[in-house]
């Protein structure tokens, strides 16, 4: 045999298949089930791993080329943002608190996704899904690192950015995103992909990523918005993986349907609860608002998600359980969440404030049924107390939902004036929940959720630096009097005002 003199033309699909799909083999010196011990215990049955469709057919040569070009452009913008004091171009320093929440709450999740996809990228026995997961794994590392680099400049000028992983591992409200991702990563690889690739990336990403990035664009934060644009093409790939994994499981075996449905129910609710933080960011933390949480929910979940679940109905999949509860809550969760943070602003690593008159008018217009009736009077009362020198703080620790770990501040689906409490007994202990959705998740896997590292319980057990609030905040690495408390009077606000007045002087 010798070298062929004529080369056959290869299509992208054939080329990809030849270069990639044949790489794996059936092991014989070690049993396949020992080499791949984790892809069966969840009960998902796969009869033909080769039926996996690779939507992108990206080989490494192309991956390196595209991604390096994107990185060059992104870092050029980040450098120029820093060189030109880009932070002075934002609408108002209150905005910065939204990205403090992003860096401490979301960027660590990007890192977790990097590791979680590495786990899935090692443990599926099919080559196609494994490579898709591996590429997503390093994409997620990219997102975590570019966020750290983009926000490094803000850290130099504002408080609250300085210790993200330390805080993510400890601070009370950050246990909400942390427990969400720990939950996904400690599940099997198929549930992990359903949770993150499908429920999170495919169904809910327009409600997480897009509001932060659009918020950045609206508020003059060019570093963050450039990162957002640059990550968009990665996200498109990730969303496609999310849909592919669902279809793959559903098409492989009918017995997979009820398992997948239960995961969709669980991860819809888990993701939706996490988005309460985004809801309050959209409605309260952006000086220049994009749209209300309710509008976003209607557009991205009710309309887009509705069409998706209609499409999946041919597999016997129905919309996730309790989506109707989310619809009932859409004109209140942002207000309820902001209220919680206003109560506990002394224990948070970002600032809160009361909405001003213009902002209240906007909220009234966006939430005509609830705002003036329920929330405006509350803010007016708090404003009055503050004017009298009696700024309201909640000085006791809140009860947390065992599942989502948010303080129990959400209300009954059919009554926005009554706090919703649910509970379950397990092995002689009582566990508390904010909703039927969170209670169901616990009841299905109590052995998992009784392990929850609940920040309030941990403080009471003496595991968080001490019994005094100040000791706990030190343990959190929250710089007291700088990172926490109201925006008004904070070092951030004082410096911002000084920078702005210096600018005016320079211009005149």
């Amino acid at each position, binding site marked *: 045999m010798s*070298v*062929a*003199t004529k080369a*056959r033309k*290869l299509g992208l699909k054939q080329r990809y298949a*030849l*270069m*990639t799909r044949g*790489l794996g*083999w059936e*092991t*014989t*010196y*070690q049993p396949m089930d020992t*080499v791949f011990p*984790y892809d069966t*215990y969840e009960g998902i049955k796969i009869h033909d791993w080769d039926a996996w469709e690779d939507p992108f057919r990206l080989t*490494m*040569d192309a*991956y390196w*080329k595209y*991604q*390096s*070009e994107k*990185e060059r452009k992104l870092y050029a913008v980040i450098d120029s943002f820093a060189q030109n004091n880009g932070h002075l171009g934002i609408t108002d320093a209150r905005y910065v608190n939204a990205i403090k929440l992003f860096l401490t709450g979301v960027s660590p999740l990007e890192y*977790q996704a*990097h*590791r979680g996809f*590495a*786990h899935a*990228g090692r443990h599926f026995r099919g080559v196609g899904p494994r490579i898709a997961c*591996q*590429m997503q*794994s390093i994409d997620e*590392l990219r997102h*975590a*690192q*570019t966020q*750290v*680099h983009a926000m*490094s400049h803000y850290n*130099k*000028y504002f408080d609250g950015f*300085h*210790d*993200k*992983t*330390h805080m993510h*591992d*400890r601070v009370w409200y950050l246990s909400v995103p*942390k427990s969400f991702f*720990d*939950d996904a*990563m*400690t599940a099997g690889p198929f549930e992990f992909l359903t949770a993150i690739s499908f429920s999170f990336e495919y169904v809910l990403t327009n409600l997480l990523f897009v509001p932060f990035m659009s918020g950045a664009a609206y508020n003059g934060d060019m570093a963050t918005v450039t990162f957002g644009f640059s990550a968009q093409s990665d996200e498109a790939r990730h969303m496609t993986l999310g849909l592919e994994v669902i279809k793959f499981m559903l098409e492989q075996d009918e017995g997979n349907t009820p398992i997948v449905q239960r995961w969709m129910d669980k991860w819809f609710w888990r993701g939706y609860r996490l988005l309460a933080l985004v809801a309050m960011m959209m409605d309260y933390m952006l000086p220049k608002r994009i749209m209300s949480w309710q509008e976003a929910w209607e557009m991205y979940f009710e309309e887009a998600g509705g069409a998706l679940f209609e499409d999946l109905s041919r597999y016997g999949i129905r919309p996730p359980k309790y989506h109707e509860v989310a619809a009932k809550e859409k004109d209140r969760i942002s207000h309820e969440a902001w209220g919680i943070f206003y109560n506990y602003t002394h224990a948070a690593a970002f600032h809160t404030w009361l909405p001003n008159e213009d902002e209240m008018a906007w909220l009234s217009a966006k939430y005509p049924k609830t705002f003036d009736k329920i929330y405006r009077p509350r803010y007016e009362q708090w404003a009055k107390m503050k004017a009298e020198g009696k700024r309201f703080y909640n000085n006791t620790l809140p009860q947390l939902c065992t599942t989502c770990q948010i303080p129990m501040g959400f209300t009954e689906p059919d009554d926005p004036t009554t706090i919703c409490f649910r509970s379950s007994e397990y092995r002689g202990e009582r566990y508390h929940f904010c909703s039927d959705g969170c209670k169901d998740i616990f009841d299905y896997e109590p052995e*998992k959720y009784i*392990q929850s*590292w609940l920040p309030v319980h941990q403080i009471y057990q003496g595991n968080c630096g001490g019994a005094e609030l100040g000791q706990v905040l030190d343990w959190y*690495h929250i710089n007291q009097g700088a990172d926490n408390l109201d925006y008004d009077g904070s070092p951030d606000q004082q410096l911002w005002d000084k920078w702005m007045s*210096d600018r005016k002087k320079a211009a005149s």
Partner: protein
Amino acid sequence: MSLDIKTSVVESRRQTYANVARRQGADRPASRYDEATYDMQPTVNFHYRPTWDPGYLLYDPSRTAIRMDDWYALRDPRQLYYATYTIARARMMEAEEKNFDFVQKRGLLESVDDAWVDKLRRYMLPLRHYEWGANMNNTAITDLGYGTAITQAASFAAMDRLGIAQILSRVGLLIDGNSGDTLKGAKEAWLNDEMWQGVRKMVEDSFVLRDWFELFVAQNFAMDGVVYPLIYDHCDAQEARHGGGALSMLNEFMIDWFADHCRWVDAVLKVAAAESAENRELISGWASAWAGRAMQAFRPIAAFALEAGAEDAMAAIQAALKKRANSIGLEI
């Protein structure tokens, strides 16, 4: 003469993140590698045990017998984070593409001795499966390893190995005119050819190692430390004698890559071994055992490709690996 553009100065309040400042001992400007690497991985207060392995925490330093006071001491001397990694590899790949173009346009493969091409199909192309195994192993290290310093570099190594498997596939496609016959043959050899079974068994055994640091030593130091010099150095030199200079050009990516890879692997092992006598002993033990196995497993490949020259080549490889081990404080 210098130009002096006037800008308004805004005093910064800090130079870097607090976690980086603590490690530097001072708040001074930090590199992008440091900011993107230090303390990225969560370390405490995990909520649930993995359902897939409840004996361990989600991130658990006890998944290896190696003990480090600070896992971030295992720095990557190349200081690769995602941006610098993709930019570095895109550059290498650009050069490799030019080589492929050059070889293809001039039909250079046709000048290689037919017998040597046949040989190459058997000794080189099955390595695409070896590389895929290396991809799996480095992905396993990314999965179970501790501390971003080593796990991020392992994730880059994993993607490198997929890239190399694909380059080897392209060499095959160049030979068979895109029919894919060479790749089918290579897989058949990997699965059934007697000469490859020692290597395949070794690779499959590495898949089930429980200690990820042992896996790091086995794959990245021992197995690679034998096969890369064998194929891309000794066989490459033989190739030239059979009109295979063109093939040698296609090996450029792997040759450059291995030099880069060794910088990382050696730096990691040197620091880990210097940490304690226990670490040094463990790593030396693993390195000896796996290097011995790799020598044994690749011997038939060397004999096939190098014939009479095989013994000398393997002896040289063994001596070089021993020297490399000694230079980083290991005994093998």
